[in-house]
């Protein structure tokens, strides 16, 4: 069936609009950062302690973050930073809807699952990363991370929409299989989810450096969530993303077995997936090893994310493995 150019065009427009909305949201998140007051160090420590007690004392469900203004319920009373933050979230949700629309339209225009080339992977990855972030907003007081998750996502979406853009096209016969659909969907979903712990770990390093020496990142770090929150966020998101990634790799092996005659052949993409998998396993181990918790674990998580992103988008340029025909540009 031929590509429906009209719908493909709408899809591209939706993509561009989503990027624009995200950019706006990112600035609002930054605005929230800038306009929120920083509390004195001692006060923060107190609040952190209070929070721990609230958490420990039984029914403590609402967690108060240092720097979080108390919500009085009436919009007029909310400080500027709070209003900016809420607008940012609302815009993110709007962007997400438009973004999803763009992906659906892409699929409709080419009559296939819209995960067939690098551009489409990037788009989907970004969709998942932002969704994961929104889900985590509900569980953890981490709205301040919004801009830092959006920034890498926007860079990828920009690259995907420009230099790595690929025309709407059907895919090669070897790529037409429901295992492919499951495999690439699961792997891109897992990668998208793992962006959140990566960013969180990076912020953990910054926050940790500041906590040890308040003169470092003095303007920026105090407005981040506490190190403990960032660490938990990273761990909780990773233990969701990692098994999913494992499942995705297994699906990939099943697909490779039926498409290429072997389930594992150390082609560059497979190798890099293996490396990423081992790095995340090391992350989980490091959290159970004395002396490796904290900073080292955070660094391992960041390395894991770097390998994942490299694997999903950039391995294709390194060499011509079997995977590379999954669509680099043109």
């Amino acid at each position, binding site marked *: 069936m*031929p590509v429906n150019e009209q719908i493909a065009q709408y899809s591209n427009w939706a993509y561009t609009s989503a990027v624009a909305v995200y950019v706006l949201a990112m600035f609002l998140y930054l605005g929230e950062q800038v306009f929120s007051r920083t509390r004195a160090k001692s006060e923060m420590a107190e609040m952190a302690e209070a929070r721990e007690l609230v*958490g*420990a*004392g*039984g*029914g*403590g*469900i609402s967690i108060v973050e240092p720097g979080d203004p108390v919500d009085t319920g009436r919009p007029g009373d909310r400080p500027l930073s709070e209003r900016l933050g809420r607008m940012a979230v609302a815009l993110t949700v709007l962007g997400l809807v438009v973004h999803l629309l763009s992906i659906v339209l892409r699929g409709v225009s080419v009559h296939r699952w819209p995960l067939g080339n690098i551009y489409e992977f990037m788009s989907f990855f970004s969709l998942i990363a932002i969704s994961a972030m929104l889900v985590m907003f509900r569980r953890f007081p981490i709205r301040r991370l919004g801009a830092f998750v959006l920034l890498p996502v926007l860079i990828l979406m920009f690259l995907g929409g420009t230099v790595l853009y690929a025309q709407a*096209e*059907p895919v*090669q*016969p*070897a790529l*037409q*299989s429901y*295992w492919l659909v499951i495999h690439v969907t699961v792997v891109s979903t897992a990668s998208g989810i793992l962006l959140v712990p990566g960013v969180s770990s990076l912020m953990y390093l910054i926050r940790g450096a500041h906590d040890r020496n308040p003169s470092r990142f003095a303007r920026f770090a105090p407005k981040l969530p506490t190190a*403990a929150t960032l660490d*938990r966020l990273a761990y909780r998101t990773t*233990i969701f993303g*990692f*098994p999913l990634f*494992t*499942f995705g790799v*297994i699906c990939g*092996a*099943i697909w490779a*077995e*039926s*498409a*290429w*005659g*072997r*389930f*594992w*052949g*150390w*082609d*560059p*993409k497979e*190798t*890099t997936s*293996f*490396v990423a998998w*081992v*790095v995340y*396993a*090391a992350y*989980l*181990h*490091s959290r*159970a*090893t*004395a*002396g*490796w918790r904290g900073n080292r674990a955070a660094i391992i998580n960041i390395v894991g994310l770097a390998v994942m992103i490299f694997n999903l988008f950039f*391995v294709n340029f*390194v*060499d*011509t*493995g079997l995977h590379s025909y999954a669509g680099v540009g043109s």
Partner: protein
Amino acid sequence: MTIVDEPTVTADEPTPPPKPGWLRAALAFLRNAWRGLTAMRTALVLLFLLALGALPGALLPQRDLNPNNVVTYISQHGWWGRLLDKLQFFSVYSSVWFASVYVLLFVSLVGCLLPRAFEYTKQLRAKPVITPRNLARLPHHSKSEVDGAAEDVLTAVDGELKGWRRIRREESAGVHTISAEKGFVREFGNLVFHYAMVGLIVAFALGKLFSYTGQVIVMANGSTWCNSGVLQYDSFTPGLRVDGTDLDPFCLKINDFAAGYLPDNQPISYNSDIEYQSGSNLASDTWVPYDLKENSPLRTAGDRVYLISHGYAPQFTVTFPDGQVRTGVIQWKPDDNSTYLSEGATKFDPPDTTDPDQLAKKQLAVTGLFAPTAVMSGGLISSTSPALTDPEVSADIYQGDLGEDAGTGQSIFTIDQNMVTEGKLDKVASANLKPGQSTTLKDGTRIRFDNVQQWVDLQVAHDPTQDYVLLFAVLMLLGLITSLTVKRRRIWVRVTPADQGPGAGRTVVEIGGLARTDQAGYGEEFGKLSARLTDAARAPGRKDD
């Protein structure tokens, strides 16, 4: 959960008899080496080395995937390339250093798993630990006073803790405690994960020993092919323990091949209509039809047959001056995967000639380019589509000595250019031919381009352990999910009759909680649980109504 970090108690080990100094030193060294190797920290470092060691395999060309790229890389990078080559960087996964990392990791894994399994079975049999004296000092704690006799309250709370491993103890007269634990499955899942990983590695390694793959080109015109020996293949890669003598017997008959294309010539489907026989069908000569296509290999007799690629084979008929007729068809090789412009050489021996001198003068070869959808420009042929819409051959016809018995293996796609330069093989005609057209040589030999046939490139793969690899992979996944989602929790309840003071006759229920994993998440959970337990304690006997 830090198993390795906990100090091990070795109080009442019997003292061994004294040993000579060197032996003791050697034993101590071995023991330390073993402890070191099986420590979690070592596993971590080894994991890193494994990741690091695997990486060059993705970044540098690898021999078994792309031998030509390796040669190019080495020649382009001079001493650096040669050094990398010496250090086995172009065959990472069979290199000594990669093997040593994973063998060490494997030993470390097994070494740390065996004691953990023992530990786990011991834990399963152990009773939940005694209730701490002061529950208020635990991270989670609640205390309330309820109506009702201590005995009833105890039963009610106990009933509420169904599903927990628990034990009741009497501390002192009238004071009872319940110690309860849950989440043992977590460690079980973790063990399943690690053991399954051991299984996967073993199955993978065995697969490397006993597998084979082979590739063969077969004409898609009803030709048959049988997996009867290594010689049947164009190329064959055996595992280390495969000598090729007893391959799984089966036969194929390739009836047809068809590719589907989009208007812009992008292929969207490959199908080959085949028949096969294996097992008892071989004896009874029964053929079973199968639609072989991409992503859908034929699985039979323990082997898998894949459709790897396809191509064209122009068929020529030569009518020799004496009236004898010979027909030749052999695969031509696609030079361009998007247009299938192909090159090849279809070779003929003169009929009824055994005299080598005669043969050497009269052998024929039709070479050149074949275009499935031909366009001519400036006398050059090119193809605009891989589909067979307007085929044409741009043929150069050579006559003379093809040099086939020179002993050097000849490519089936070309003629031996040495023969041409030596003047033993001459170009005698050139012609552009469409199906049905022919050209006649000076000596009266007529060469006709009859039609185009297709060939398929098949890969046969045999891997006896791949199902086990999948099984272990699934077990790993299940173990992993269990180990990452199940949480280990402890809860203690102390029920004390309040027989003094104003609350006499009532009962004090004190609850304490401790999380062995994911401490931070236990707060809310503990809050709900202790509320439930307290509710049950408030209305003892409600369950019996």
